[in-house]
């Protein structure tokens, strides 16, 4: 597979994910068949050995998460892909990866739940599972693409963050993004940049080697298994030597450090895109928006739903209502600052309308971030159907908040 493309190619979301993984340097995949993510496994079963990588279809979802962590401990970039039911099963070992600080990428292609639900229909019901699915306090990074091209770039970036911060990263796709085909020009990885995990600066056998001693960045260097460092890894609370410890200050500090190492990069991680119906898009809202409009709405959305929301904002504008899309690229850590900005923009003249294919998962976070400065309303459904631009436009028009 070529690095980057010069001419547009027709690509499916799941294909873009597999390509991105190879480009990011992923050389190990373990998974279990599940709709609508199976194409990622199928493509990597073919592509990985061709680049000297390894693919294995494990006996279950739990085992595939475990194998990914095992592979990563040997110094190999590793990933898995699944959907809701499988994502639930992987949660214990995702927590293990967070606690033992083992880099790995988990792709969850969301389908309608709960339970087996609607296996071939889209949903965005795993936002909170991605955040809190494993037990105990822990940090997490979750990114969510809206287009096939972005599936590619976020796959590379997710692997990068995972390696850089020694943490599991979740790429939260939805069935539509995973299965839609778009004409895309893929960037090269030289454009995107690649990160490798930090390795120990001391040689194997150095008595000063402490596998879980972090520097000022709160990320301990990671030695490859088989490299001669002979160190212990556990999911129990542990000291800087990696040995189990009991309750107390040291135990608390470990979890605080895990959280801190992500929070240090919150500003860089909390990515959003502001999209005006005219096609203007950027990391900041367009200057001057919403001008002297008496009523204005910030529509907050993500994933495939954001595509409908973008069209809806244009429909609303044509009907005389000022609306702009705030598309979330990162879900966790939650982009509070962008939501606060949204609240400021529509203060005393409008509302924040959160559109998502669930019964209100991001909307509650949005309300928390907006902290009562403006009304935050949720719109969405859980019937396995996409939210259409017309539905969203009608919701925008329903909003009150006239100045």
């Amino acid at each position, binding site marked *: 597979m070529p690095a980057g493309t010069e001419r547009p190619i027709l690509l499916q979301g799941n294909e873009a994910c597999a390509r991105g993984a190879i480009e990011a340097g992923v050389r190990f995949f373990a998974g279990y068949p599940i709709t609508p993510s199976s194409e990622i496994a199928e493509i990597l079963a073919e592509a990985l050995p061709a680049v000297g990588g390894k693919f294995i279809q494990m006996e279950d979802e739990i085992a595939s998460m475990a194998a990914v962590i095992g592979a990563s401990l040997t110094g190999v970039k590793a990933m898995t892909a699944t959907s809701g039911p499988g994502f639930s099963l992987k949660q214990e070992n995702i927590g293990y990866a967070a606690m033992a600080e083992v880099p790995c990428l988990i792709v969850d292609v969301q389908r309608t739940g709960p339970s087996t639900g609607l296996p071939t229909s889209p949903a965005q019901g795993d936002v909170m599972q991605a955040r809190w699915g494993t037990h105990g306090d822990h940090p997490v990074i979750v990114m969510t693409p809206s287009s096939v091209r972005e599936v590619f770039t976020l796959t590379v970036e997710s692997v990068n963050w995972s390696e850089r911060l020694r943490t599991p990263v979740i790429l939260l796709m939805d069935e539509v993004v995973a299965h839609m085909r778009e004409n895309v020009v893929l960037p090269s990885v030289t454009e995107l940049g690649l990160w490798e995990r930090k390795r120990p600066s001391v040689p194997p056998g150095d008595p000063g080697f402490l596998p879980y001693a972090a520097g000022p960045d709160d990320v301990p260097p990671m030695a490859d298994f088989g490299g001669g*460092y002979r160190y212990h890894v556990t*999911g129990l609370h542990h000291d800087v030597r990696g040995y189990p410890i009991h309750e107390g200050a040291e135990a608390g500090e470990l979890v605080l450090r895990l959280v801190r190492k992500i929070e240090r990069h919150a500003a860089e991680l909390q990515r959003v895109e502001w999209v005006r119906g005219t096609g203007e898009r950027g990391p900041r809202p367009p200057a001057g928006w919403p001008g002297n409009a008496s009523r204005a709405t910030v529509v907050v959305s993500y994933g495939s739903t954001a595509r409908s929301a973008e069209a809806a904002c244009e429909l609303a504008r044509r009907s005389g209502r000022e609306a702009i899309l705030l598309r979330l690229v990162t879900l966790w850590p939650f982009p509070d600052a962008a939501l606060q900005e949204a609240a400021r923009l529509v203060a005393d003249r409008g509302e924040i309308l959160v559109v998502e294919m669930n019964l209100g998962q991001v909307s509650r976070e949005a309300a928390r971030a907006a902290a009562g400065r403006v009304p935050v309303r949720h719109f969405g459904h859980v019937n396995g159907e996409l939210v259409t631009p017309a539905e969203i436009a009608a919701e925008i028009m329903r909003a009150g908040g006239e100045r």
Partner: protein
Amino acid sequence: MAPAGMAGIDEGLLYSMLRVDRFPHIWCPGCGHGIVLSALVRALGGKIAAGAVDPAKVVIVSGIGCAARAAGYLNFDGVHTTHGRAIAFATGIKLARPELKVIVISGDGDLAAIGGNHFIHAARRNIGLTVVCFNNSIYGMTSGQYSPMTPKEAKATTAPYGHIERPFDLCELALACGATYVARGAAYFAAKLTDYIAGGLDHEGFAFIEAVCGCPTYYGRRNGMSRGVDMLRWQKEHAVSLSRVDRAAPEELAGKFVVGVFRDVNEPEYTREYERIIRLARQQAAGEGK
């Protein structure tokens, strides 16, 4: 006379394999786990002394339970994983880096109950892991609940009226799943156990060694064997050598367990097979490039 498994191994080497700063260990007085760990250390030490195994390339993988704590006492790269999942983690390690010597330590609850699925599939794949099951027929760490290896009629905290389930024969299970090296020993026969583990370490494919051992605290006390020595005596009196099984009458074998090497055959090992896949995929990719 030193047991066979100890012959020729320098004591300094044996100690270098243990994290003595982690002692005292968590195991109760009379627990059989120390004997099984010792057999593993001697078997592995023998391979290291002979230059057959590079200690830098050894990875110890364990799950959750009393036995699983052994990973923390062994001075190698080690990963103390989630309950039941040791073999699944080990599969990832071995496939990612086939040059590593990957040893799995698992209790009977960890391996045969919550981890049963991984056990049967790793055996089926014939992936090159050496799996040692510390079988004490009970969940010790959680204080004595019945495991898939608890004998029928035995008492456990969750079988206060006597156990009604039949236990697995783990070696028969491994054999049925295609394991290419299968052996059973017991803590009482420590030297033999060492030899069985050594055989598993030499083996290229999936090697399974069941080590029968005692938990006086949570199994023995409820079942008339409150001291470690009672449990060792039980092993001595109930073990039947594989070489004697054919000649033994069925009633002689009732309630007994068979020790010995049940299978030691060479069949294609999984990661070797995968190397063939890599060659094929590369050839095809090169062909397409032309």
